[in-house]
């Protein structure tokens, strides 16, 4: 039972009282403990001159599942120079940033840990791919992980909604799916749109009918959000809205918020859904409208999906929108696929350019959203890795948010029309360390229901990042002095020192098992896998995620909104 004392660091822990004070943090058995100042410790690490924070949590990053592998297969040229043992340790030395666009599992785990992140969550797990997703995330070293399972364009849900089946039946279907796939949450991508695409629709507005099933995205959103609320799943419905990337899509986004009728929901990569149609190019920022709606609706949380200039790849379940974007592919190749008739997938490589009006505006819109939303607890820092840019750009993004002069320098480099007209140039706000800690740790932990992560009170998991307070925020957040995962030091000054296996977080909401006979009847006729083989058991989850630990996140049924 060894005890570790992190001595004399400035503890930035906005989830608990006294954030910003200088004090010691005690660690024993992988947990944070109260340690009397005079109590002996087996190891003392001097953290004078350092910030001590909880380990970072990325709540929306594509690190496992089918499309990640498709992106790797599509872009082997981006991985060629990053596979050597030298490269795995080389951080942050001049590695081509493109090497992190489609990193392998090992590089993913190492790079996150080298930046002080200790958990990452895959937002788009198709039920049929759940085993693969868990295996792949299990192969990512160090990080805790979990995934949100996708419903909303699957045949069964749409058919049952079209047939007017009782809500309870659909709720139990959601409950069964979460249990069977060992998911942490539920995601909907372009509600109904992936299915509508297969019926030759090329767009689907929130109140437009699916041409075959005659249901609307509004119905789907409300049904799923209500289901999660009744099941008591902590993470609200994770929504990739309609009309991603289309000028004027702020209307869809506001309609989406309206469709929820006050039910909780998380709108993801919201930057891609905050576009207006003003100005000579009929493409403008609708960040103000979006932020006004978010500030007014306490049931809504968001993550931004900031874009970063340079090479990346967009990987999405939204086949409808990815087909529309395919002609922008750079390099000129892409993949689109159906998955088990229940979901879709589109992978389009993309290079965001500073001198492109559209890309520059996207960059500015993301930053506007970060800086204008009042409540940092409802904004999560993401680039929707790799869609807006690789996660390794987070330190740069943090500096943009914390340093107004630096932000204005970058603003001067982008397309002049955007630089001249963007609201960004008038925003003086600089985010504080507490606010950054909320957006990267405490906030996502709370949104996911991870009670013992994202903060540093006694009893919390000892996932800790120690940053030396020197230089600009970018260099500080790039290379923490020490990183601990469950009390084990995994990185020291940018070098990986240990590679433990991370745990899986998932929910097990209660539901009526009577639903299984209906599901079996459907799968016996339409499924490609035996119904009995669909559900992943605890033991199997443990095995396929390399036994890094299984953490059941508690549900509170009864509909607490």
């Amino acid at each position, binding site marked *: 039972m060894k005890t570790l004392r992190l001595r004399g660091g400035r503890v930035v822990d906005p989830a608990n009282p006294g954030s910003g004070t200088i004090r010691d943090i005690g660690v024993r058995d992988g947990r944070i403990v109260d340690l009397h100042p005079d109590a002996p410790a087996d190891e003392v690490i001097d953290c004078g001159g350092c910030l001590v924070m909880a380990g970072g949590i990325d709540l929306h990053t594509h690190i496992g599942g089918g499309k990640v592998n498709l992106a790797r*297969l*599509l*872009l*082997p*040229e981006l991985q*060629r120079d990053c596979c*050597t*043992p*030298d490269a795995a340790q080389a951080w942050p030395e001049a590695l081509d940033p493109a090497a992190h666009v489609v990193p392998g599992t090992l590089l993913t785990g190492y790079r996150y840990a080298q930046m002080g992140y200790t958990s990452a969550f895959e937002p788009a797990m198709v039920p049929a791919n759940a085993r693969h997703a868990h295996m792949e995330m299990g192969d990512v070293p160090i990080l805790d992980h979990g995934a949100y399972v996708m419903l909303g364009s699957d045949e069964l849900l749409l058919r049952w909604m079209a047939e007017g089946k009782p809500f309870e039946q659909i709720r139990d279907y959601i409950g069964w799916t979460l249990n069977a796939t060992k998911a942490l949450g539920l995601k909907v991508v372009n509600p109904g749109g992936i299915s509508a695409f297969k019926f030759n629709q090329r767009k689907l507005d929130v109140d437009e009918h699916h041409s075959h099933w005659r249901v609307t995205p509004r119905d789907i959103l409300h049904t799923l959000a209500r289901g999660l609320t009744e099941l008591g799943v902590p993470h609200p419905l994770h929504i990739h809205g309609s009309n991603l990337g289309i000028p004027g899509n702020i209307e869809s986004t506001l309609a989406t918020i309206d469709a929820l009728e006050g039910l909780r929901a998380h709108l993801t990569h919201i930057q891609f859904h905050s576009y207006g149609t003003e100005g000579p190019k009929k493409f403008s920022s609708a960040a103000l409208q979006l932020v006004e709606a978010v500030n007014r609706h306490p049931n809504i949380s968001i993550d931004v999906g900031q874009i970063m200039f340079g090479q990346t790849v967009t990987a999405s379940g939204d086949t409808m929108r990815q087909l529309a974007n395919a002609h922008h592919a750079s390099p000129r*190749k892409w993949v689109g696929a159906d998955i088990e008739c229940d979901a879709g997938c589109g992978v389009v490589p993309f290079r965001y350019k500073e001198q492109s009006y559209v890309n520059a505006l996207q960059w500015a819109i993301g930053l506007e959203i970060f800086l204008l939303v009042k409540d940092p607890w409802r904004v999560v820092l993401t680039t929707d890795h790799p869609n807006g840019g690789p996660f390794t750009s987070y330190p740069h993004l943090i500096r943009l948010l914390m340093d107004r002069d630096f932000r204005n320098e970058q603003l001067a480099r982008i397309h002049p029309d955007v630089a001249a007209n963007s609201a960004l140039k008038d925003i003086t706000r600089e985010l504080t360390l507490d606010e950054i800690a909320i957006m990267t740790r405490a906030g996502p932990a709370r949104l996911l229901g991870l009670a013992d992560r994202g903060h540093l009170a006694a009893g919390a998991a000892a996932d800790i990042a120690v940053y030396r307070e020197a230089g600009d925020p970018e260099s500080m957040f790039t290379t923490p002095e020490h990183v601990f995962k469950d009390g084990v030091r995994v990185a020291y000054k940018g070098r990986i020192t240990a590679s433990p296996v991370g745990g899986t977080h998932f929910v097990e909401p209660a539901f009526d098992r009577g639903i299984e006979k209906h599901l079996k009847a459907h799968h016996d006729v339409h499924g490609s896998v035996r119904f009995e083989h669909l559900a992943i058991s605890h033991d199997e989850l443990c095995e396929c995620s390399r036994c890094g630990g299984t953490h059941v996140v508690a549900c509170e049924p009864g509909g607490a909104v």
Partner: protein
Amino acid sequence: MSQACHLRLKHALPVGVDASTLLPERLATLSIDEIARLPLELGRDLVAVGDLFDISLREADGVELRFEGDCRKLHGVGRAMGEGRLVVDGPVGDQVGVEMRGGEIQVCGDAGDLAGGAMAGGRLEIGGSVGDFAASTLPGAMDGMRGGVLIVRGDAGDRFGDRMRRGVAVVHGRTGDFLASRMVAGTIALAGETGEHPGHGMRRGTLVFAGAQPRVPDTFSATHHDTRVFWALMARSLAPFGAPFDGLAARCPARVVGDLGADGKGEWMLPA
């Protein structure tokens, strides 16, 4: 005066070794000890150059690096090389001369797959035969060979010149299937027979069949252009590669273009 570095393999290699870091220009300024300490990947382990090779240095007229012994498991030799001369005494592994930009590589034996893949400049000569995807694109990349000269004295495998877009590639023997598939530009000259589907998806570029004449596929068509001036220039540029390319000027070619399924601006020269 410069130095020539000789690396003689001590033992046959049990697994593949990536030798792409051993370039003539890089070793030219190093001592024997420094070269001996350079790291190499042997499977999943790191070893030193001195563990695998006997090293000797001699004076020479230019920068030179010479590999001796059975180098069939030595891959990536001369990758991205920019200058100097690199000689492999026998056979060599995959990816010899990929992405090379200048200088000269001479392989006395056979080479594996992807010889001269994505090469952009310089001269790569293979004394023996090459595997598949020579003068082609590296996996996933959009462009194949984009400059320089590749000479194959023996035969070539499948997909020779896939996505090639500039430079000259000459094969003295025969090639496998899908010669010049998806070719964008550049010149390929062939002395021997070719396999199935030559010119599949060829968009532009020139194929010269100096020896056996292939069957012209349905997706290629005759143009009856007057090619005499062009042919005189082309024949002169190919003559230095020796027989049968040195007698082309006297043989007036038929010209067909294709692949009509993909732009159809590629040309085949079929000298009588």
